[in-house]
């Protein structure tokens, strides 16, 4: 039992890590009252940005590159939605298509037909001294990459920031009522710019983590719907930091399950396992329909574009 369970849980945490980055980024964006459905395009940009920057300056540079690529994509979104007052749904869709198309083209342009060099820097799991020798918990939680450990620190920090700082309060207020935020003298545009850029950087980190901590290389379309899953995770997590992190774990588990079931030799077409996380998305979203806990401004399409 343990022989299966530990690899499964380990894989759950590992696959949940990039999802959590993207979802927490989307969470911050949505709490400011803007939905960025272009997360998919941001993640794939983060993948390529991470690959290119890591090739030039090592793994640490790769994460920086991924975050910058993601923030750059988000800046395009913010410019269109906040400055030009374009429709956020259309802009987000365009951003996804742009990201998928542009990364494919750039990748082929940069690396030719033979693909990226196999020597892409990557980061290996680090067993934390002491903690990693705990039974079950050790190999699952404390034998991960640095990005997972960073997430352990980031989640409480974000929760604290949202609840206990004036800036966090301001961000939530902008997401709940633009009019009330304006009346309180808040700079709605600036807060939303910040939230969108932050979400982009987090999405970029998700992409860089995929490349540098999991897959080890870039393939076209490797984001594989994670941007949309991240949006679903935020809904499932009820727009809360801890809830969203837990929801990311559930989806990490769904991805890990496909490895587990395939390893267990179930004689089912593997496409079915691949479809599992997406099927889960549909089922959970349908089960959770209705309850209104979303930031109120998300419902008011018009307000996204107003100053």
């Amino acid at each position: 039992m343990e022989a299966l369970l530990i690899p499964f849980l380990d894989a759950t945490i590992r696959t949940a890590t990039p999802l959590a980055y993207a979802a927490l980024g989307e969470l911050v964006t949505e709490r400011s009252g803007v939905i960025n459905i272009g997360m998919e395009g941001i993640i794939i940009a983060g993948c390529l940005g991470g690959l290119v920057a890591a090739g030039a300056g090592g793994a640490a540079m790769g994460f920086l590159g991924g975050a910058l690529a993601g923030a750059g994509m988000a800046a395009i979104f913010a410019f269109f939605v906040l400055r030009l007052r374009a429709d956020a749904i259309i802009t987000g869709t365009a951003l996804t298509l742009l990201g998928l198309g542009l990364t494919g083209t750039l990748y082929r342009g940069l690396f030719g037909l033979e693909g990226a060099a196999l020597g892409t820097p990557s980061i290996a799991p680090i067993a934390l001294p002491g903690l990693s020798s705990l039974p079950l918990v050790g190999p699952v939680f404390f034998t991960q990459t640095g990005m997972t450990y960073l997430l352990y620190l980031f989640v409480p920090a974000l929760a604290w920031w949202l609840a206990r700082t004036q800036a966090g309060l301001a961000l939530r207020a902008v997401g709940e009522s633009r009019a009330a935020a304006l009346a309180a003298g808040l700079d709605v545009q600036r807060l939303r710019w910040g939230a969108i850029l932050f979400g982009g950087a987090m999405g970029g980190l998700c992409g860089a983590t995929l490349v540098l901590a999991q897959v080890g290389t870039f393939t076209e379309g490797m984001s594989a719907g994670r941007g949309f899953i991240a949006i679903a995770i935020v809904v499932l997590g009820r727009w809360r930091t801890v809830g969203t992190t837990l929801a990311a774990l559930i989806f990490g588990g769904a991805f890990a399950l496909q490895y587990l079931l395939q390893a267990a030799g179930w004689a089912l077409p593997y496409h079915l396992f691949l479809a599992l996380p997406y099927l889960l998305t549909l089922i959970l979203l349908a089960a959770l329909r209705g309850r209104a806990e979303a930031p109120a401004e998300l419902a008011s399409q018009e307000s996204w574009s107003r100053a």
Partner: protein
Amino acid sequence: MTQRAATEPMGADPRDHEALALEGITVRFGPVTALDGAHCTIRRGTVHAILGENGAGKTTLMRAAFGWLMPDAGTIRLHGAPVTFRTSAEAIAQGIGMVHQHFMLIPAMTVTENIALGGRGRFDAGTTAARITAVADGAGLPVDPVARVRDLAVSAQQRVEIVKALVRDARILILDEPTAVLTPDQATELLRWVRTFADAGGTVVLITHKLREAFAVADDLTVLRQGRTVLSAARALVTEAHLIEALTGAGVGPGGAGGPVPYHPMPTARVADAPEVDDPAPVLRLDGVRYVDPRGVTRLRAVDLAVYPGEILGVIGVEGSGPRELLRILAGRLTPTTGRVTRPDAVGFVPEDRLHDAVIPSFSLTENLVLADGGEARGWMDWSTWRTITRDLLATADVRAAGPDVPMATLSGGNQQRFVVGRERRRAAAALIVEHPTRGLDLTASARILADLRALGGNPRPAVVFHSADLDEVLAVATRVVACFEGRVREVSPPSDPTDRTPYTRAMTGSVETTAVSSGGTR
């Protein structure tokens, strides 16, 4: 406030100093000039009422003073020194607070979070809550800092708004139509508080269109008409006649109503004579109706009521005591939990929130007419016929509109309301339910809609049930009055002295001296 009073220089009357002066304020929204050189001077330690009809520019003028918008021209002086507010944050920092007509509170957040909004650095809920309680108690405006705003009654939300301004050390409070959302008792209490605040050295700007309010509490009055200041004087120097003349002017009326509309004097508390009714069968009837809302709160208990043709039943009662549910059950918008409702197939309904519940502002008048007929119009739309019907409606209901094809949003509030009333009358001849008929309308439009309700014709005449937060309005129009209190509905017997309002206010606050409304009423 008490500290504030102590900081005032001793000896000199603070009222000799100007707190806020606005001169030559011009504000344009595209081609529309909202303010055209408006001015007023607000003295320290006074209550200054800004009067005017809807669209006269009252709110716009005060928003300019609050930094909510930048005037295109004009100067603002604060305590004698010229200031320019680019944002409301700058005005707040200078001690100006504004309570907007539509509260700027976030329903999902707590009182503490709402008040803390806009600060910097750490947000410590405990410390902030303690400060809120201290300020609120000191000002005599109790609020619960940990309550969520969405759970608070409107009057409590208003206190939160005022406390929010006071926590930020507001010395000048701008209140935009503060009593519009309050019951008469709550309004009296608020105005009393306003007076106390000013007497302690604070300055209050009261935007209102209620003359009686302005007379009751203000030291100075400024009247705006079409973006210009037409009167600005101490209250003692102004008579009611002056004010009405200044407000309505000569030859101007909103929506191009064509010539001055005579002012309907403040109605006396007199229930109009009940109509002669030949047909004894009630149009609307409730038997033992109980209603429990989705949150499990019992809103109506054991209500028996009958409404007859030609009757205009005025429903009074504070928010939450049942009038809303009573009217919506009669209109067929709510289904009672238990009890029996007898009503015609079609009952006309004019909801309080016109723009959300009654019309689609961006649709044309014709489309809005067709939509209300619901399932009646099917298949191929014969638009020319509908357009003709709409045109007829515009004529009979006296709706001022360029034609049946203009968007609803282009009509003034009064014309929209007349359109909705006319449409509902056309749809349902026997019964009409009207919530807050004058809400959001100016003096002239209000007077007209009330007159329209009184004059509704037809054979047999329709049964009308309406609710208003304004007791004067109910007494001016109704032929019979019932009061809601804690979900019970009682008829109020007209007092022998027609100016005596105590029976009505008592009925709304649960004191006795009312008779149970039987199915037969008091007829």
